[in-house]
């Protein structure tokens, strides 16, 4: 599985925790109560709040795609609460089925076109925690957004 290895390598490079698991194990391990915000329609998991200035502890969201070339997840974030949650959670967990893993950036061009051709649209590529190197080029995470990120790949979907 070259694509998966490539994704895992790139995702690990930015400090993500990567987990590969079966659907049943995912359901066992990750419970609704573990997150302050959940939006994972493919897993019928929802818990909606609007994150505010104080931020939230954690958020679980489902990615529409993942890109092996860069280790990124692609999330349609036009839902404002989802966007706020992914911007303001200290810990961000992103889940996607292996079937959504694509090879290169250009594989999501059509998706971007489709999701942003209406009145509004907001799609995010996320590759790791919020980071800066603006002070003495020292890499520091969590400057505005999440301080840690976990990627869960469901390998039997």
């Amino acid at each position, binding site marked *: 599985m070259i694509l998966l290895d490539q994704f895992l390598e*790139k995702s690990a*490079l*930015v400090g993500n925790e990567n987990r590969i698991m079966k659907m049943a194990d995912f359901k066992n391990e990750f419970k609704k109560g573990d997150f302050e915000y959940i939006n994972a329609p493919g897993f019928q998991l929802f818990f909606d709040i*609007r994150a*505010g*200035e104080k*931020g939230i502890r954690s958020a679980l969201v489902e990615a529409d795609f993942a890109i092996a*070339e*860069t*280790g*990124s997840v692609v999330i349609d*974030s*036009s*839902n*404002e609460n989802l*966007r*706020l949650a992914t*911007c*303001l959670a200290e810990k961000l967990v992103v889940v996607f089925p292996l079937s959504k893993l694509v090879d290169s*950036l*250009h594989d*999501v*061009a*059509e998706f*971007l*076109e489709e*999701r*942003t*051709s*209406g*009145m*509004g*649209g*907001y*799609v*995010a*590529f*996320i*590759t*790791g*925690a*919020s*980071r*800066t*190197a*603006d*002070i*003495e*080029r*020292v890499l*520091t995470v*969590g*400057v*505005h*957004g*999440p301080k840690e990120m976990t990627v869960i790949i469901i390998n039997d979907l």
Partner: protein
Amino acid sequence: MKIQTKIDEKLNDKILYQNLKGFATAYKASKENAYKGLDFEVLRTIVHDLKDRDLNKVMQQFNQFKENVEIHGCKVFQAKTGDDACRYIADVMKNHGVKYMVKSKSMTSEEIQLNQYLEKEGLSPIETDLGEWILQIANEHPSHMVMPAIHKTRQQVAKIFSDYTGEEVDPEDIKAMVEIARRFLRESYFKAGIGMTGANVAVASTGTIGLITNEGNARLTSTVPPVHIVLVGYEKLCDNFNQALDIVRVLPKSATGQIITSYVSWIKGRNISYKNEEGIKETHYVFLDNGRLAFFEHPKFKEALKCIRCGSCANICPAYEMVGGHVYGDRYIGSIGLILTALYQGDEAAKDILKMCIGCRACSFNCPSGIDLQSLISDLKLVVGKKYGINPIKAKVFKTVVAKPKRMKSLLSMGASFQFPLTTTHKLNQEKIIKMVPMLPKEMDFRKFPALAAKTFSKRFFREGYDQFSSHRKVFFYPGCAIEYFYPEMGLAMVKLLQKSGIQVDIPKKAACCGIPAIASGDPDNAKTMIFNTLDSLNNTEDYEALLVLCPTCGGAIKHEFLDFTKEDPDRYKKAAQLGQMVTPVGKFLEDNNIKFQVIDQKKVTYHTPCHDTRSLGYSAEVFLSSILGSQFVPLTDSNVCCGFGGTYSLDFSSISNGILNKKIENIEATEAEILVTDCPGCVMQINGGLMHQNKAVKVLHLTEFIENHLIVVE
């Protein structure tokens, strides 16, 4: 402040020196990693080509973008000038009764000095990018396009934060400083009535903008406040997402050496907004002209509009590395900064900073949009040189001496005869040098100057009978001024070597300068005279296998600049084009002809790659040497980084030249080599001069002399 004063101030800033040096080293390694497995040339050609368009095409893209967003109630404003853009944005703030506007980093807003404008109007823009925020509260401007506060240390930042917040800040704890920024800026997003972002790309097919950030501040800026303003230059437009993604693929890799940034956000029009009374975001697009649109029609300067603002031309610029972006550039920094200052702010603003380009061409080969930045700078130097004049002494020397080969020859041979009271022999390597240059300013005293050769190369060539050797195999050799007047032995070493291999060497009857000193100084008229003199002195190509050069800068001039300067003279243009095809550095000629060598001693050798070998002639002798020398060859760190010579640059900006040279010498010493080989007489003059000045016993040899003294031909 005069430019020289500004330069001196930066050169004395030890912190800046360390920060920029550390960054330059780290950047090269991470960039190489980020592009691993990819073909940089292919990728940058794609970006270059997709950005290759005329005004008509850009306006088509703009109209499509506009239609796609206006149909949904977004507002599009076309700002002719920076002030128009500022006024529009201020009006949006005022109409909403908004005092605070959060901003994510936008170089375009630096270009139009938006913050200053808004503050004058009593409005409060708040920078949210950490580096920009540090500078905003310190009341400074960025010194780098993607790392705005690269000139600051953690201790300085701690002081700025402590003064601003009234809190105690641990001067060593960067993590804690980042926490402070998180806390203060978090509040800003929620109190701001408007969020303003730039755009890295603007996709015409849908009216979507793409934003590339690491911190996530652009996401919050474009999400939380009820109004979103996008400030964008027309040049950021592209047709569709395929093109946008081509740009996204290279931008972070070239900018910071990251494969991709933490966030790439694709934002379209009017999203749901709980903070907006209507429940839906109000969105404005301010498209900025400010002089751009005119240049889409310019045959050369339209290239500058292909810039994707990665800042990497600064990252690899040896002069930038010495002085930083507060001197090397203006609102935009690095090579592209010199150019955009001239195009957007006018040549008056750019006339001094343009001279600071040393001409090493590293930026042209590093640009992910494939812009030949150095050539644009060179063209602009000629424009401002002609308009504002150049150093009067130089102008006089070019006009009355260098452009008149006969007079130059007689003056320099007089010099050679009468210099003896000033010359001495350097005790380390027995080379003849100038003991002391009378009235030399202190900052120029960082290297020993070679004495003029007693007899010129041409004189010795004809007197010693090298013109008598004839063969059916012939090459033509253009010695250039350095070999002719300072280093004839480099030329003779080559002549002897080739004749031994049965190759006849012809040289010009009259020595003339290739014109580069005048071009680099911004003196087009004298450059043209010099180029015509040289061109007329070179034989036609028919009988020759190659036009050999030992100075790659001269070779590069024949290959490239001669064409520019002969455009209106078809006969000379044809000759220049034919000769240009044949220009060959000597190492390449030896390799191509399969002349094999063997080393005769055990000395450790390293190699400095002259800028114009690789970047003008597409050749480096490094592989040739290392294959002959095996384990005796020690690679030089940053071998292909400029030595700081740049011809008269080393006199005009001697302190920068010296700083660059010192880094070269540090790297040479680290190799522990006894001999440094290079194949440019200018690099020899600079590096050898510096080593002798510092009394360091490394021998510097041109490739031809190294071959003569340390190698033998294997039959």
